[in-house]
């Protein structure tokens, strides 16, 4: 064999097993393209919207003396500290917030309230409470109901171990139902344009309303959508906002006002809390909500005593009424009742300008009281035995007291008229006690049943203060 053939053969014999193995295992070289990777350093923290400038100090106190009742008796899912910005805003307007802890019937609180605020309840409202709220709104009070999808209550079934979510809308919706408002058991979200998280939804489309005055952007931090059959939406979401209930695009509304303008439904209240109240125009909305709460022009009603007055009050007697001992006692009680609601009561010879007035009189001096009874269409017959009340009919003048209330732009006036001076203390006592259950109240006129008292001269001192005449045995009886 020629040498070169030997070399070729040797090389071939060397290479063949190698190639065989390579071909057996490796079909072709593995060429890998460059692996792209995300630029992790390029991501930026989303910045919160710039807060609007803080509202200037209010020149006037539009809510001076107004009381806002905040529900704390229905398992409400908040702590007072959270709503401090709202309480502060109410105070800045001269209003005052009171928490209803449930010790007294709701109606007794609503008597004097400008607004009633409910946050995320987790207990139902009784029929009596719903009626009281309805009556309150009907008389001009304002109702503000806030729900919040992050405040649902969880219930555990101890038998099955299952968890049941009890959303606040279950308990808030019956309160809102009479006003054509309701919360949807959902939350809104926006994956495209949000405030740091998909559930923090920005709203820039607002209806024209005092509640939305000055708003350019409001952010809600977990918000139910609100529906209304007769009211109006105050804000609407954009087309990229979804409802968790359907996962469908909006627009959806987070705020709505009832048709009568007295009831506000808001699907979130995190925006009222710190630090969220300082984002975008949330603080402005907080202010307009506070304005709304203290802005009710509620017509005071006789049944709301002692909350008929909103200013320092002058007590004036007319006719033959004298401030004797029997009358001063009930007046003192009346003064205390008014003091409890920060209304000072002063005895005056005549009304002071800018004060409310409480007038005491009797039917015995018709000339003195006629100025007060005439506007109510009340006349007394010649024998002074029967009162003719326009729209009511004839009423016995011998055992009936009258309460006449009139509200004026500068002064409210309550006139108490008893048949006699002897019966006046009882009438004042009824009013001071705040219990008018013995009175028929019709609009601004109250007719109270009083106990007839005989004239003093028909009784001797002994009739009231007789002394028992015990026989003192002079000695042991003789057997």
């Amino acid at each position: 064999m020629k040498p070169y053939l030997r070399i070729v053969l040797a090389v071939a014999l060397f290479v063949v097993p190698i190639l065989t193995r390579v071909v057996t295992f490796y079909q072709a070289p593995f060429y890998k393209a460059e692996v792209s990777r995300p630029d992790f350093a390029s991501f930026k923290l989303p910045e919160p919207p710039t807060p609007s400038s803080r509202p200037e100090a209010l020149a006037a106190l539009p809510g001076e003396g107004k009381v806002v009742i905040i529900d704390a008796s229905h398992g409400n899912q908040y702590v007072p500290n959270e709503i401090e910005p709202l309480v502060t805003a109410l105070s800045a307007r001269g209003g005052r917030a009171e928490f209803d802890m449930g010790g007294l019937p709701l109606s007794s609180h609503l008597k004097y309230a400008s607004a009633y605020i409910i946050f995320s309840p987790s207990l139902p409202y009784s029929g009596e409470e719903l009626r009281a709220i309805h009556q309150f709104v009907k008389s001009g009070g304002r109702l503000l109901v806030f729900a919040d999808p992050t405040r649902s209550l969880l219930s555990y079934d101890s038998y099955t171990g299952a968890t049941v979510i009890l959303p606040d809308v279950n308990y808030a919706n019956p309160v809102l139902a009479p006003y054509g408002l309701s919360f949807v058991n959902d939350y809104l979200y926006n994956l495209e344009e949000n405030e740091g998280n998909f559930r923090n939804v920005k709203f820039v489309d607002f209806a024209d309303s005092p509640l939305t005055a000055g708003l350019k952007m409001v952010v809600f931090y977990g918000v139910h959508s609100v529906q209304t059959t007769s009211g109006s939406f105050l804000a609407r979401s954009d087309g990229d906002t979804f409802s968790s209930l359907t996962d469908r695009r909006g627009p959806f509304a987070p705020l709505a006002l009832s048709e009568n303008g007295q009831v506000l439904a808001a699907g979130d209240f995190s925006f009222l809390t710190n630090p969220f109240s300082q984002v975008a125009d949330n603080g402005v909305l907080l202010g307009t909500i506070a304005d709304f709460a203290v802005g009710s022009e509620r017509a005071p009603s006789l049944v709301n005593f002692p909350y008929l007055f909103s200013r320092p009050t002058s007590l004036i007697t007319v006719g033959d009424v004298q401030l004797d001992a029997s009358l001063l006692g009930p007046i003192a009680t009346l003064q205390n009742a008014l003091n409890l609601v920060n209304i000072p009561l002063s005895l005056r010879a005549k009304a002071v300008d800018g004060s409310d007035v409480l007038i005491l009189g009797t039917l015995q001096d018709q000339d003195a009281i006629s100025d007060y009874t005439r506007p109510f269409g009340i006349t007394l017959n010649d024998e002074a035995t029967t009162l003719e009340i326009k729209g009511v009919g004839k009423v016995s003048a011998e055992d009936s007291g009258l309460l006449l209330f009139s509200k004026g732009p500068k002064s409210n006036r309550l006139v108490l008229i008893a048949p006699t001076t002897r019966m006046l203390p009882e009438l004042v006592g009824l009013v001071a006690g705040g219990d008018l259950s013995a009175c028929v109240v019709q609009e601004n006129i109250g007719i109270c049943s009083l106990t007839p008292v005989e004239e003093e001269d028909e009784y001797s001192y002994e009739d009231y203060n007789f002394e028992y005449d015990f026989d003192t045995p002079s000695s042991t009886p003789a057997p």
Partner: protein
Amino acid sequence: MDETKPEEKWVQTRNGLLWLALPLVLGLLVAALIPQPVIGVISLVDAIYGDSAQSVIWQIDYARQHSEVRAVVLVLDSPGGTVVHTEAVYLELLKLRESKPVVVSIEGMAASGAYYLTAGSDYAFAKPTSMVGNIGVVGVLPDSPSIFENIISTGPYKLWGSPRDTYMRQIEIIKQAFYEVVKTGRGDRLVAEADVVLSGQIWPASVAYQFGLIDELGSQSDAVEKAARLARVSNYKVIDLYSVATAQSPAGSAVGKGFFAESAEGVTLPYPKEAGIYLLYIPPALVEQK
């Protein structure tokens, strides 16, 4: 007449054999040095956290350093886990993919952080009813900062890490990164819109396939074959890299412990025992309880 002497004949024959046999033997010896290709299998059947992530990283490192490992099949059955450990495994996977293909085979679930890893692969298989997705981040906001009589710290967030609001935004940035990982990894194969991907839903693989979140419905052996095809090898052997890579590592025996909370009765619960930020799927009933 052949006048060659027998000694010369023997020399010729010997030389001829040497010229034939020696190259052949040498060729055979050299051929024997060419290793049989290996498809390495790395299993992550656990949450992604310190120990489990470290175990996977060791296996990835082994695959990268051993040339016979020509491709890797990452078998996933995981609800995800911590952000940083998911990222750690993901970055190692990317590095491995520069030299070897990585194919994912989803068993029961590749949720959240486990899908993050899926997006970092070359190709992904799943069973038709494997659960895939839950793309997003979950975390518990820290408490509002406060101070305590007997604890002294040097700044308002020394005890709390960050303000609640900042924490929320940090979670958002992690979400953005997650979406970028999905977009980058899936490329043109991703057909679902961002709002669908980021909805956080978990889908059966048959639906995830339609969204382009995985490449094919198939078994683990399909994944192995695909890995071999991508690596262009045949007659390969399949090796579980856990046994070779972590046999001598202390982390090997720690997998499966330490991440999930436990009930008072010692039952492991499917949510983490520590508050933090996670790429984790937590079953709905348990979310409610938490």
